[in-house]
């Protein structure tokens, strides 16, 4: 694979916030700790999570690789290793670790990974305000009406209607949960599309257009997923 970093990954890949050591002012040569005074250095604030975890900007990832990078970097930055150091070093290790944790958690989960990539690439696809799926909205609003009725019925007088509604709502819920599964499948099928373009020629104009199209499709799936998730949660809360 074109983006493989090989096995001899050095320590010096991540960009730092400053080129000079905050403590002794000597030039930081890319190590996480100053070569002169051995103080830990802050990571760059502009570091994106893929770079941070030393992964190419692809959507199919190797979880083991993500985890091993996370562990390795944590061994360098974890605040536990700085409890005896001065305040400034503790603050820096905390900041670096916080970044690592967020990067790790975000990339670990496929949905969050896709959402993050879309945000990251948003400059190009800012205008994606997906066309509202009218049929889905109609369905949601109709279910919402049933839910309102269900909530307003008194237990004693309307047992039959309550039962009837509960059944209906549960059927709808199952159908929607099926749909959620489908949505996740169609989302991950986009992962391959993205990766193929990214690996082939990530920089060409042609690729940009294709990539934006994939991002837009993923954004639409994610939006629909949010709508469905909300109504499913409401159904579970009310009529389970």
């Amino acid at each position, binding site marked *: 694979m074109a983006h493989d970093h090989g096995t001899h990954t050095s320590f010096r890949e991540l960009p730092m916030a400053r080129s000079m050591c905050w403590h002794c002012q000597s030039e930081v040569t890319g190590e996480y700790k100053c070569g002169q005074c051995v103080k830990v250095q802050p990571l760059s604030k502009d570091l994106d999570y893929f770079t941070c975890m030393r992964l190419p900007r692809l959507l199919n990832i190797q979880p083991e690789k993500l985890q091993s990078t996370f562990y390795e970097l944590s061994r360098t930055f974890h605040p536990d290793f700085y409890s005896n150091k001065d305040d400034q070093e503790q603050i820096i290790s905390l900041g670096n670790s916080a970044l690592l944790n967020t990067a790790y958690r975000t990339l670990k989960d496929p949905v969050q990974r896709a959402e993050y990539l879309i945000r990251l690439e948003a400059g190009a696809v800012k205008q994606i305000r997906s066309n509202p*799926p009218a049929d889905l*909205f109609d369905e*949601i609003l109709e279910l919402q009406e049933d839910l309102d009725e269900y909530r307003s019925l008194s237990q004693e007088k309307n047992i039959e209607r309550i039962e009837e509604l509960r059944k209906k709502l549960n059927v709808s819920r199952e159908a929607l949960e099926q749909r959620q599964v489908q949505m996740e499948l169609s989302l991950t099928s986009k992962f391959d599309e993205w990766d193929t373009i990214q690996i082939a020629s990530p920089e060409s104009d042609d690729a940009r257009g294709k990539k934006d199209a994939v991002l837009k499709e993923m954004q639409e799936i994610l*939006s629909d997923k949010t709508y469905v*998730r*909300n109504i499913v949660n409401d159904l579970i809360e009310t009529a389970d």
Partner: protein
Amino acid sequence: MAYSEKVIDHYNNPRNMGSFKKEEEGVGTGIVGAPECGDVMKLQIKVENDTIVDAKFKTFGCGSAIASSSLATEWLKGKTVEEAGNIKNTEIVQELNLPPVKIHCSVLAEDAIKSALNDYKKKAEESPKVESVATSS
């Protein structure tokens, strides 16, 4: 984060909740959603002689979204179609004192108004049998 009194008032006593039949003459329907939070808003207007005589909404979402659409229906009534198109989300933000994180709810309401107006205009063009389809433009 606390909601303003006005939001709470609209939330507890939503004005004009409900719906018209979509096919009904003079009715424009707007259904919009906010992908960020999953809110869904349906806003409908009923137009007679180019004036909005009634408006209804149904919103599935947070308190601010409900309040924004409730307020929007109040404002819509009595306005001409053209005037209605000038309602801005910033006015809703001001009236309801929405915090920055809830501004998108007011945007959603403005989108819903626009969408309902468009639907009405489209319907009016398609069925010019109505006696006075005064689309002032």
